[in-house]
């Protein structure tokens, strides 16, 4: 691995995805530094979610490369991207509706008993299961869902579903976690708490974040580096205050 590769957990090269005539992601080059919180912002329809979809294999790119942890993962199916150590949350929550909050997290962590031959024999997976339950509760506790562990996901409110999205992703122990508007719709004080918690994890875990956020007033202070997208293209990048003072960025946000 070159030093460049060692420094960045994720790097895209000319990543492009079009829907018919609409180029939602247009030759995007983004680098996510290890153990940092990289923020991706931009107005509605800028292509942020599409970018994450293409990186994680939910959609196949038309052009370009996705290099993750020194490996070319372009076009890999999502479950292989997961195994490589890259997960993402969903802007519009995608819970496993009939499973409990705890089970939602346990699914995300995974267990060898997911193979039917092992699954049928409890002692082959029960120890791992208990360890996972412990892991899950640590995260659920942090996002305020521990007491709701046995509630089926369809009974949760919108804010709680957002937290479940975060909990599932964090519990995987992935090397890179893309958070697609994780605090959308939550009140500012709580959003602040959650982001500080997530940011704090950088110090204790070997993890990196790609934070996609709309509400720059709340999110920007947590970012180590910022990319700004508009209409499929990266139009600015830099440290948070550089970007905040960039006339192009100001224009889009005022023009909105």
């Amino acid at each position: 691995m070159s030093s460049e590769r060692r420094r960045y957990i994720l790097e895209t090269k000319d990543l492009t995805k079009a829907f018919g005539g609409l180029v939602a992601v247009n030759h995007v080059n983004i680098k996510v530094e290890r153990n940092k919180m990289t923020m991706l912002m931009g107005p509605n329809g800028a292509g942020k979610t599409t970018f994450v979809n293409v990186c994680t294999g939910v959609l196949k790119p038309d052009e370009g490369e996705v290099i993750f942890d020194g490996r070319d993962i372009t076009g890999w199916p999502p479950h292989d991207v997961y195994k490589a150590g890259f997960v993402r949350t969903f802007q519009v929550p995608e819970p496993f509706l009939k499973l409990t909050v705890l089970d939602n997290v346990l699914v995300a962590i995974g267990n060898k008993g997911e193979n039917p031959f092992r699954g049928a024999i409890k002692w082959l997976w029960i120890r791992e299961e208990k360890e996972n339950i412990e892991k899950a509760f640590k995260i659920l506790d942090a996002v305020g869902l521990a007491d709701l562990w046995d509630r089926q996901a369809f009974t949760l409110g919108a804010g709680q579903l957002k937290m479940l999205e975060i909990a599932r992703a964090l519990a995987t122990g992935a090397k890179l976690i893309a958070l697609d508007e994780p605090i959308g719709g939550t009140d500012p004080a709580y959003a602040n708490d959650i982001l500080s918690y997530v940011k704090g994890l950088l110090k204790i875990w070997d993890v990196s974040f790609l934070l996609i956020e709309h509400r720059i007033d709340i999110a920007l202070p947590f970012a180590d580096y910022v990319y700004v997208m508009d209409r499929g293209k990266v139009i600015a990048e830099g440290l948070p205050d550089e970007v905040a003072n960039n006339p192009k960025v100001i224009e889009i946000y005022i023009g909105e």
Partner: protein
Amino acid sequence: MLPPYVYLILNILVNFAVFLIVTLSLNLETGYAGIPQFGRVLAVLAGAIVAGAVPGRLIAYYIGEKWGAEYANHLYNFPIVDRINREILAPNPLLSIGILLFTLVVAAIFGGILGYLSSYPALRLKEAYLGITLLAFGDALQIIGKYWQPLVGATMGVTVPDPYRCIGIGAEKTIGATLIFLGFAILIYLFVESLGRSPFGRALKAMRDSEVAAEVYGKNIVRLRGWALIIGGAIAAVGGALWAFYAGSMKALTYDRLTWTFWPWAFMMLGGTGNNFGVFVGVLIFSTVRSLIYVYKHALATIIPIKPAWLEYILVGLVIVLISLFRPQGFIPEKPALSVKRKEIERIKEAITSKKAEA
């Protein structure tokens, strides 16, 4: 001779056993994995065909009888199987058990292979399209069985060797065969229930609830769906083979989609999808009602203005409509299946949340 009510109970039990097996297999694929399995009859029929075509031929070959295409010709078939039953199986309990188990294993493998083959369209087609494709698969095998004589005697069917003959004849045998059937059904119940409560069952439900999230969280959808179809197909085929053994004859004609696809759907919907106990209850209620209709059809014919046979059709339609309208989750809605005892989970939770409170 046993009193008539004993026969009624035996009839209910054997119907319960076979439909429990078949409906549990459907529930694994549809209730757990979310695959619209409208071709349940395919694997059931495959299992019955194995029972009709394999063990008899094997023994016929061994004792020097015709075992090729002629075996399935009704002119030869009945005398050959009759000889097998009297001379080979009746005096040989161990061999009978061996033949029974061997046939079930072959049926399971055959059903599993068909399940695996169905996973190809299952990956490419969505919902209704997949449902219709699977339905067509089921009908296709029935047509082959119905018209291709060398397999299982086409419209005339074949006689199936009787592994229960060693128990005796008449009432003894009926009771023995019914209890064995029930025993298999219970074993299968325990098996699917342990699968359902395992991480495997949970992953299936996750895939059913959100395919994209399951994929993003590391589940190989192709593989999971394949496994559900293989295991479901294997179980359904075991049900079909047991049914053919119990009936003593095998006619492809009788493996129609009303009985072996739509009935199991109705049982599952009535009891509750995605939960095996619901299926248990649904099948119990239904098989009781069905047996009663069957046993009392002559009495019924005098009091209702339609043919009692139609009552079954009306019933299945009515149940599906009423359940979908008023209680789509079934009598017993899917409950979270805890992989570890609640107490144990609470204990882990307390240990973690209190530690944090101290810090």
